[in-house]
């Protein structure tokens, strides 16, 4: 580890990985919520054309990629807002046009080489300069602050666009803002994760977080934690294993997802075995429903014909672990009629 930290470019790489690990899942959660998981991938395709233009003209590829990706982001939202069925095809044309133009332009530029292309597509942090790193850090900060400020509105629009519109929120503007934040994240991440893999770091940590989080807030925290562990861990691992950083990061994120999925499935099976659901319960408990409310640890049970009923998801659970209640919990369905006050 000391060896790793003694290298300038590795220290820079770790800082970059930390920023990307926070920003990508933070923006990605709203893409998952809007069911646009693959949109980051498309923006990466278009950003490649921008990179190629930068390489050809000798300008810093970060800026040309940023212009291309942000342009694509705005175009995507405008096409989607019009809601035409042909919009889907228009997006495909734009995305594949971007990557094809990128490949062709890079091949024609004096400093272009296949290695150069691979570095942008799949990530190669060791090629980033200190200036690059400052630019990335600045852009990552823009993404973090922007997403944080707009978070309640992005949530509202992604959760229920129709309600957001009826409440007077600038829905199209917010959708464009999210697309632009996505585009900036794609560009910020291209050196570390690569344009073809960045979408994975936006989506997979969020998929994993769905398994742990019980609320939106908790889900986002988990996703950022998993994103940081995968990206920083991936950079360290790629240093020792001498593998490309992008692929290593994404494989690590996928490994975390599989481990979490298996773990939570096993835990859920064990929980279901212990959880008793009140059968045939066609009454909704609440204040003044006629049943005695009994505080029980962190929640309220309702005393319903000798049974303690606790709200769980869309139904009621039998609470109170005494053997008698466990033995006759089948009776709930038959006694519920006279329980209605």
């Amino acid at each position, binding site marked *: 580890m000391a060896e790793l930290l003694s290298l300038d470019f590795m220290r820079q790489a770790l800082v970059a990985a930390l920023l990307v690990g926070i920003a990508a899942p933070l923006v990605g959660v709203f893409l998952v919520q809007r069911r646009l998981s693959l949109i980051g991938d498309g923006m990466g395709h278009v950003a490649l054309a921008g990179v190629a233009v930068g390489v050809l003209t000798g300008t810093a590829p970060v800026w040309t990629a940023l212009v291309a990706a942000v342009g694509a982001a705005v175009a995507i939202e405008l096409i989607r807002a019009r809601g035409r069925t042909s919009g889907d095809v228009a997006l495909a044309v734009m995305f594949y046009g971007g990557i094809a133009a990128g490949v062709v332009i890079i091949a024609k530029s004096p400093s272009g080489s296949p290695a150069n292309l691979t570095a942008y597509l799949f990530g190669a942090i060791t090629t980033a300069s200190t200036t690059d790193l400052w630019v990335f850090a600045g852009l990552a900060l823009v993404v973090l602050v922007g997403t944080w*400020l707009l978070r309640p509105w992005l*949530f*509202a629009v992604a959760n229920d666009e129709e*309600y957001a*519109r009826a409440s007077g929120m600038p829905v199209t503007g917010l959708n464009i803002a999210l697309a632009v934040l996505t585009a900036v994240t794609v560009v910020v991440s291209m050196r570390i994760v690569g344009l073809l893999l960045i979408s994975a770091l936006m989506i997979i940590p969020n998929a994993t977080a769905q398994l742990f989080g019980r609320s*939106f807030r908790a889900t986002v925290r988990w996703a950022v934690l998993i994103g940081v562990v995968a990206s920083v861990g991936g950079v360290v691992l790629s240093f020792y294993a001498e593998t490309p950083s992008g692929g290593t990061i994404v494989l690590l994120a996928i490994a975390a997802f599989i481990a979490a999925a298996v773990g939570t499935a096993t835990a859920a099976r064990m929980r279901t075995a212990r959880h008793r659901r009140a059968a045939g319960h066609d009454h909704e408990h*609440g204040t003044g429903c006629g049943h005695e409310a009994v505080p029980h640890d962190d929640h309220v049970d309702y005393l319903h014909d000798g049974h303690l009923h606790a709200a769980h998801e*869309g*139904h009621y659970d039998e609470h109170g672990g005494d053997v008698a209640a466990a033995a006759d919990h089948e009776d709930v369905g038959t006694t519920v009629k006279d329980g209605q006050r």
Partner: protein
Amino acid sequence: MNRPATPVVEVDHASFGYADAPVVRDVSLTIAPGEVVALLGANGSGKSTLVRGVLGLNEQLGGDVRLFGVPREDFHDFPRLGYVPQRHTLSASVRATVEEIVAVGLLSQRRWWQPRLGRAGSTDTIHRCLEVVGLADRADTDVSTLSGGQQRRVLIARAMASHPDILVMDEPTAGVDAANQDVLAGVLARLAGEGTTMLIVTHELEALSGIVTRIVAMSSGRIVFDGTPAEFEYHHSRLAVVGHAHHSGDEADHTESRLAAAPAAGPFDPQGDDHHG
């Protein structure tokens, strides 16, 4: 703040729909403060289009819409408007708790550069709204695990969070089991008792009997009935007679002229059965 004389909703000869295919044509409707209006009609009669048009969610093709006396384009006092859309507008691809969904209802009172409203204050409001809809003990539950009726009540709580002067609801009782329908009717009765104006698109008038003060029925994009529940009952039974007579081919003269313009079939059109087959 309330000027009682100003109607809450005024729709004046308005048409809504898609550019070349209006769904609702030349409709006029005025709702006074405190009225609880049930908007009835078969699927495709244009009732949802009308309500969405009033809220600015559908293209307006002509006429005027005023909310609280202000033309809709200039209306920005969104906290006064509580909208309860159909449940399937909620995205379930990411977890969100009941409390987080209801908190969205507070956003219309806030600009993006403003800091959060006092956190304690907003939590209080959210819990009061959840109390009203009977979901206080489910504040931390993932909404997607709730039953349809419970989700409906979450959406009502969200709409209530900004203390609106009118609640606009799109089929709040559709697909809701009996136990939840009772709770829902209780919630709406309580809100009506507090003087909240309501516009409710529904198929199930029975669930709302005793709450509704006025019934508006639509058919083929036009309003074909507008009156009290008692008048509707009478109209209903007459239609039944007319519908019956229609078979034998006499008594056609007794049909009111506006009924002649009501060719739709549906649960509130007793002629419906004739057309369904």
